[in-house]
């Protein structure tokens, strides 16, 4: 935006006009459970984009499908300029998303709903296919020479988490599932320990969130098992754990990027009519972080954005 023209004028006049009056309001609606580290990164990405584009960001989250749909309705009620929404439970969201689109509010999807976003008429999609990510993890397990994997689901009945495990199972059939209570770390630890004690042939523990990987490390020790821990998603401590070799690798879907792109795309759409991805999903993962490439993400993880 240094080549003059309308954009420059706008960019120049915007701060002057009302000392930083937001150019637009974006509602950012996810199915995150409160206090989840993954969603914290998504949110940080969204906030970074909002700050850059002088956007007023209204972040809301509710894990319950019907409630999340109602959050879309409230965004419509608030007459926001754009909605970024996760479509983890696409059927629940469908009606209200279409309502928003009908009302002329641009909607972009992220994280979940890779199969449904197009049919709903959503502009863009940023995220990964959970099934494909799971399959990638399975393939990697096979490649690592694993014999039997334990897939730890921290929220029973969660479609996205189930898809990851199912994907893993598809490409690595010797995968077993276990459900744990994600909000209760000691019980997570005890449950994984007990499973490892029950089935000593398990040599990989695949967790679906960074904090659970760190707990699984303790469980492995408690059970005196030789299993290695691998995981989906990262956070600061996990990156360190990969570096120390406590965790083998992590499937990274770049949550920061998902949040960032979702908000920025709405800004682009509003100010310049741009559509990222050209009608196709923009995949932010899966990529693998392991000992070989962990150094590259380490410093960003330390500042809490990876």
């Amino acid at each position, binding site marked *: 935006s240094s080549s003059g023209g309308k954009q420059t004028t706008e960019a120049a006049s915007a701060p002057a006009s009302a000392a930083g009056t937001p150019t637009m309001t974006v509602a950012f609606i996810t199915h995150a459970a*409160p206090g989840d580290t993954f969603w914290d990164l998504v949110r940080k990405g969204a906030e970074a984009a909002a700050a850059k584009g002088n956007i007023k960001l*209204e*972040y*809301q*989250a509710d894990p*319950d*499908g*019907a409630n999340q*749909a*109602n*959050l879309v*309705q*409230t965004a419509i*009620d*608030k*007459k926001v300029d754009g909605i970024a929404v996760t479509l983890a*439970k696409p*059927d*629940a969201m*469908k*009606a209200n998303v279409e309502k928003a689109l009908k009302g002329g509010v641009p909607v972009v999807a992220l994280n979940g709903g890779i199969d449904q976003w197009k049919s709903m008429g959503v502009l863009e999609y940023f995220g990964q296919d959970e099934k494909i990510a799971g399959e990638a993890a399975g393939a990697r397990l096979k490649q690592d020479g694993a014999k039997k994997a334990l897939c730890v689901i921290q*929220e*029973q*009945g*969660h*479609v996205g988490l*189930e898809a990851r495990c199912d994907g893993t199972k598809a490409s690595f059939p010797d995968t077993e599932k276990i459900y744990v209570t994600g909000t209760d770390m000691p019980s997570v630890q005890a449950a994984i320990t007990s499973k490892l004690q029950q089935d000593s042939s398990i040599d990989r523990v695949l967790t679906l969130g960074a904090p659970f990987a760190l707990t699984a490390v303790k469980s492995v020790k408690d059970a005196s098992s030789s299993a290695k821990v691998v995981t989906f998603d990262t956070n600061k401590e996990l990156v360190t754990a990969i570096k120390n070799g406590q965790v083998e690798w992590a499937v990274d879907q770049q949550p920061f990027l998902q949040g960032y792109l979702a908000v920025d795309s709405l800004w682009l759409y509003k100010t310049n009519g741009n559509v990222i991805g050209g009608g196709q999903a923009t995949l932010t993962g899966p990529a693998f972080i392991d000992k070989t490439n962990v150094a590259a993400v380490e410093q960003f993880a330390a500042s809490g954005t990876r």
Partner: protein
Amino acid sequence: MTAAVTEPGRAEAALDDRVATRSLAVRMLRRPEIGSLVGAIVIFALFMLVAVPFRNVANIGTILYGASAIGIMAVPVALLMIGGEFDLSAGVAVTTAGLSASLLAWNFGLNVWVGVILALALALGVGAFNGWLLFKTGLPSFLVTLGTFFVLQGVNLGVTRLLTGNVATADISDMDGFTSAQAVFGSEIALGPVTLKVTVLYWVVLTVVAAHVLLRRQVGNWIFAVGGDAAAARAIGVPVRATKIGLFMAVGFCAWLSGMHLLFQFNTVQSGEGVGKEFIFIIAAVIGGCLLTGGYGSVVGASIGALIFGMTQLGINYAGWNPDWFKAFLGVMLLLATIVNVYVKRKADLR
């Protein structure tokens, strides 16, 4: 009562100067729901003040929808609580009802309405089972329905995966009878600028019917009695067991209604949902003036409780307050509403 005025005893009653007269207004003030009504007004006024979208008449539909989702279940849960029992399985029973209607229709390729009817039978059955187990084991309902809660949670997931291989039901929107069922359970009504979901209508009807039953029918009297003192009620000839089982079945019926809305609003049902909702229903009932120990309360109050909860949830959102603190705001608002509630009731009792 008119005849009584000239009757000797009555005339003498007027002589007791110890009893200050109590006006109709004050007597109104002593109804159990009055406190929650004032609480609701306070919360409403607060959000009118701070949240711009709250003032928009068109948004009333959203607020009422949020409240109705709670209210439809809060009404029977309040009745049950007045009758002295809890139902912790009420939240997952909603999901069970939705799942079973969908799975039965889908799996056997039946007309959707057949699934709906079978789900009703199942929901009533779960309620009756809760009640039966209560009397059979002599355990408190907290424990019995906790057992059902866990079992239903597991069954929801296990059966759904068994039949569909997924954790959510398949889309049934292309099946026979879906459109008509959707019209019944998932439609909308436009009233001027306000679009109301049909659940709001069900909620209002349920509240009126339940309030009528509670205050103007024999069963209502029995509900108060079995909750207030089950031993005394039994001693005086109230069929305690039938009354309580009936109440559990009423919860089952409303769970079915909610479940059907869930199904036909969203076409599919997630098998893991509904957990934790049972407490929101209980909270609504308690805010509405129901005693946790039974024997006292009001369904109108419970509905107002649902409204308070719905308003608060959306109001915080409309006001654009920091969502990190959402729960903290919610907690403060709930405490505020209930403290106003208690304050008003205490004042009323003192008159």
